[in-house]
């Protein structure tokens, strides 16, 4: 088993976290959250990958003739993409609203809720 893709998944996730923690712009922060999520896509697809296997589409493939990659993780990734699209859309809508109400998208200047 090759560990390289797993390291990439972890790296992408942590890079997203770093971006979120240090972001000075909320749109950038929402992007960083998507980067974190991209880490989960990489991990899921890595889990299902098999050497020399093809896509699990059986229309032009005799079942059992060749190995295929795991379709379950592909379904999971697809679901994850849908979930992520919803979250990102909602977050960006909230950022638009924050920009209207606060006049800024810099989290350092949003200090009304504290203590």
């Amino acid at each position, binding site marked *: 088993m090759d560990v390289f893709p797993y390291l990439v998944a972890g790296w992408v996730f942590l890079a997203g976290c770093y971006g979120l*923690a240090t972001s000075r712009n909320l749109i950038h922060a929402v992007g960083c*959250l998507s980067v974190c999520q991209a880490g989960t896509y990489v*991990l899921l697809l890595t889990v299902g990958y098999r050497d020399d296997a093809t896509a699990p589409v059986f229309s032009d493939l005799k079942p059992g003739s060749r190995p295929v990659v795991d379709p379950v993780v592909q379904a999971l990734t697809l679901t994850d993409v849908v979930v992520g699209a919803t*979250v990102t859309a909602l*977050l960006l809508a909230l950022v638009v609203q924050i920009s209207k*109400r606060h006049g800024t998208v810099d989290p350092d200047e949003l200090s009304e*809720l504290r*203590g």
Partner: protein
Amino acid sequence: MDELLPLLVAVPLLGAALLVAGGRLVSRPVAETIGCAVSAGTAALALVLLLNCSPPFLEWAGDWTPVDGRSVGIVLTGDGPGLGMAALASLLTLAALAYSWHYFDEPPHGHAGSFPALLLLFQGGMCGFAIAGDLFNAFVWFELMSVVAYALTGHRVEEARAVQGALTFAVVTSLGAYAMLMGIGLLYARTGELGMHQIGRGLDAHGRPDALVLAAFVLVMTGLLVKAAAVPFHFWLPDAHAVAPTPVCMLLSGVMVELGVFGVWRVYGTVFSGPGGVPAPEFERALVVLGALTAVIGAVMCWYQRHIKRLLAYSTIAHTGLFLIGIGVLKPEADDGIALYVLGHAGVKAALFACTGILLDRYGSVDEHALHGRARELKGVAVLFVLGALGLAGLPPFGTALGKSVTEEAVGGPLTVLYVAASAVTAAAVLRVAARVFLGLGPRPEAGSGYETTGSGERPETRHRLSRIPDTMTAVPAVLLAGAVAVGVAPGFAKVVAHSVNETGSAGVFTSVHWTPAGVLLGLVSTLLAGVLAVLAVVRPKPFAAPDRALPLRRLQSGHVGDYVAWVLVGTTVLGALTLPGMLGG
């Protein structure tokens, strides 16, 4: 009976779809009636299933049953704890809908159905999470309930604070959810299964736990503990509760946070408790340490708040700490106690939020200092508020007291002191608010340190400030408090709860749950302690106001989303460090 299980999710989702599609055609009362009818129907279904759930239901959606022990289908589990949480979520949704009946902000023209539709979606997500028997589905329901919760938190989009609190909530919880998904991916890589029982069996078949199991455990628990608002994952919660509309706060504090605790219990019990998972002493250490920290920080921060909704939010954090300790000690009696405690707490906390909502809508403020003595005329609300505080302290015969005493007996030793202290301090803070706001006792408090959210100048959630309190707004907290008392006194109720929890949780060990003299005494002690603290704080505010040495703790709650993300990473590391030693040892 088991084929009715998916309806718990399908009915609220269909109801929400109906309201979204037809909401613009119908008037507001019709939309709200549909919302109430659908959530009440789901609640009734959950209760019927709950009464017939022995032995537990198992439903493979679409008949994708396992072949030779390998499964690809989606499994729903209808056991006592899961259906109990679904019933609690449904009943609280009904309460929130009834509470917002007609009073809540006039929706924009043509969108009469949007708020009840969102609440029904929320209910569907929570019910789905409660009965999910498969980890990936649990993640999807977790995300559904979270996304709806963000939308509901930021429901008043024209409020500056509301959108800010909703964004913080969304970023932190989503990050937790993605960590959980990473963990699920690792577990699938090891076992090739997604059903919780199947994963557990796969891990056991693989032999001793290794780094992958540890990483999966830490990642999955991170997601669930963010939802459960354990320290240091808790920062989103006070911000979200301070800005969310009152009916939403009732649901967030009453059941959504508890679903995170329930998730920890369910996932550990079915996935990681075997020989191939995380050893019991490691789990116990991690949860008891985090739980104790949560209880202490929650109680201390609760005491220093003047924004009443934030105060109640911190009290929820303190109680979550107690719940985590209870499930962390891995004793059947403690599980029973926590189940009862959660039920009682849901009623009490939702009632307290409902009363706070009345203050907000009548005086346009939830600031303890600004409201000093102004609510003298609200006698009925004052009684409900004080009763809620006493329930929080664990005064017998509230269900909180029964649950707390059972758990205290099970955890034993110094942790009992923590249970008494945390519930006494949080209740004392609520009693202090009651004494100042409803009775006008004590001198008017001086301005604080400045590093705080005051809660004055909030916009009421009704069209106008209320001159007369609608009956629904007082009836709902009264019914909720009656429910919290019923949990403690209804004959046989505690036994039924204990039986259904033990049936799934503790491998055939059945315990009996009842009031004990020691438990009653401890309940009275914590109530007395709460009363004394509250009186002292009201009479002599100076020594009990926030001292400077509390300031570093308050500064952590900075309102900055980047800080909170950093704390989530710290928490994940701490969780790993607490779990690691036993994995190295054997």
